[in-house]
């Protein structure tokens, strides 16, 4: 063996040693659970006794067709994903641009927007519950102080309003996240480009359309994909705020998965739902390169 070959060999061993911990972690805590879920989705199992596991084929997936609650959960999750992704970006980007222009109060705005992100979703849900509950702060003001209504507004208890309330709470919590990422992207936008556009006679809107947005396109792609993935797997906020109710009006795929796995002990069916969420999140992740304008 030549010296070069020995050196290359030792370098590859060292490289493998560096990669090994991450590979082991990835295999144990990501790859194996995903493969286990994929395998369990094709079984009938109550989660208790491994001796009672049985092959179910595509039975769990074909059951989706006749499961009305699954349909509702899927529709609510799609609505949640689409609305939060659109609103978070429509709110986050302009606010980031406002802060970037250093308008009066921009520091306060930045902190105010970012603050909710420091709270856990469970705490956020409890706060919103306290405010919007039938005997919470807002209803107390509406009913007892202002006498606008004789009965409380069913922010969380009315099936027609509950999903809207969940969306509102989610947007409140995560708008600062988008704002922060866009702000970081705007910080790296070279001033020369905007100055050159300005000298060429481009107004604010043209600068935005032809300079800022194209420059931010990779950032937008990442932010949108993160929002999409976050939306597909939303759980904690919904679980605490409404527990999927009333009457399944805020049931999401993830809360329905929890119900199937840990209340009904239908691990096979719950795994099929989990696989659906993983597939939807994977498709969203694959969209990133297309959104960023990169070749796929």
């Amino acid at each position: 063996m030549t010296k070069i070959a020995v050196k290359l060999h030792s370098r590859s061993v060292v490289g493998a040693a560096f990669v090994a911990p991450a590979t082991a972690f990835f295999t144990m805590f990501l790859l194996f659970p995903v493969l286990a879920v994929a395998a369990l989705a094709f079984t009938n199992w109550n989660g208790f006794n491994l001796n009672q596991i049985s092959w179910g084929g595509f039975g769990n997936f074909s059951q989706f067709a006749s499961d009305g609650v699954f349909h509702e959960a899927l529709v609510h999750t799609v609505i949640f994903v689409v609305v939060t992704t659109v609103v978070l970006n429509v709110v986050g980007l302009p606010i980031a641009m406002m802060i970037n222009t250093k308008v009066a109060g921009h520091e306060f705005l930045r902190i105010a927007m970012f603050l909710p992100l420091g709270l856990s979703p469970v705490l956020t849900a409890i706060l919103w519950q306290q405010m919007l509950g039938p005997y919470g702060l807002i209803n107390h003001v509406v009913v007892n102080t202002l006498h606008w209504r004789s009965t409380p507004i069913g922010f969380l208890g009315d099936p027609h309003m509950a999903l809207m309330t969940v969306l509102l709470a989610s947007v409140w919590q995560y708008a600062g996240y988008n704002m922060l990422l866009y702000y970081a992207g705007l910080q790296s936008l070279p001033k020369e480009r905007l100055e050159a556009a300005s000298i060429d006679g481009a107004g604010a809107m043209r600068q935005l359309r032809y300079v800022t947005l194209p420059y931010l396109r990779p950032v937008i792609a990442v932010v949108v994909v993160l929002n999409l993935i976050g939306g597909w797997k939303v759980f904690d906020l919904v679980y605490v705020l409404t527990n999927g109710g009333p009457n399944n009006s805020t049931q999401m795929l993830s809360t329905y998965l929890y119900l199937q796995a840990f209340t009904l002990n239908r691990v096979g069916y719950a795994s099929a739902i989990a696989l659906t969420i993983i597939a939807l999140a994977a498709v969203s992740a694959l969209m990133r390169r297309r959104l960023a304008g990169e070749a796929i």
Partner: protein
Amino acid sequence: MSTSNEFKERTRIGLWRRAAIGSVSLAVISVAFTTGAIPGGASTPKGGGNISVWEWQAGTSYIPVFQNAAHRYTSQFGGKVNIESVPFAPYFTKLTSNIDAGSGVPDVVEMSWTGEYQTLAKSGALLNLTKYLKTGFPAFNKAAMGSLTENGQVYGIPMDMNTLTIAYNEGIFAKLGLKVPKSLAQLIALAAPLRAAGDQPLGVNEMDGWPDADLWFSQVAYTDPTHSLIFKADDGTTSWNNPQFVKAASNVQSMVKGKLFADGSPSLTLSSVSAAFGQGQVAMMYPAGNFDTSLVNQADNGKFKYGLFPFPPVVAGQKSLASGGPAIIWSIPAKSKNPAAALNYIRETVNAIGQAEEEANNFIPSSASFAVPANANPIYKQMTGFQPTAQTRAIFNSSVNTALGNAMSGLLSGTVSPKQLGVDLQAAASK
């Protein structure tokens, strides 16, 4: 010469072998004596030794009850009781994983009163306790035992009982001249004067899910005079879509139509409805039971007075019936290494001393012969007074149980009819 040497050598080996066998036998006998496998042979009394107990009651008044039972067990039988509070969410996953693996299996486990109990019992994971109940245990409340009987066999021991009733604010009732209703129509009729006075009628923590089903159970207590249809439907010997079950849902629907339930009930949790009741924002709350009297008291430091009554019968003059069932249920995993000791610990939680401790903490002992002390607080006296009338609130089939929760949630929001509820339950049972 060689024969003599061979003989000596054989004798030497034989002696060594006998000595080895003797030592091993002695060791086995010693172990058997000390572990109690040979009755009367151990220094520890039979049924003693270290055991572990799993429960999910962290932070509640149940913990001192469990711990004191452990002290009594230790002083009487020897050995320690390791009580471990496992959060409810991963409880059954952790328990079944340990049972499957055969390691870390606790000797005594708190058990759920619905699906998991039946699943574990059927899979052989729980010890059949039927024959053991004949020795050293009090006679238990019939309804409680009915809830825990699976194909004639019992796998759980009820430590105490839940009795679900309606709590009412005596101050608001007195102010408006309202009386405790004697019939369903009178109960529904309370809504109008309460609302007219700016008070919300009956708060129900619908967001928690389970009270929706309990509203139905409260009515089945009346619509099924045999008090056996739920057990039969669970066994598959009658349909879930029978008229008595549909009628129970119709009764609840009449409450919805009569605007009996407080606005916002779908988004109330147990703590928020207790707070609303304690602060006088709702005139009544359901379900009131041993699990939330302390919450109500905390809500307003017990300043206001309240009383209890079960859902009244459809026709005035009939006997009032509460719903209820076992609260803390003890089971012993079949893989417990010390079932005799586990039984002794459970006996300590349900014997006369155990019952007195439960009473001191506002829990209702499940012993059929439990007598309420004369100096018990009035609410406790009312609760225990209704306890013998308590009808089951348990469905073993977890699919049906969940379907009931969903259908009742739909019924309360006006999207599911009583007839549809029956159809949904039967469909869930057929899955």
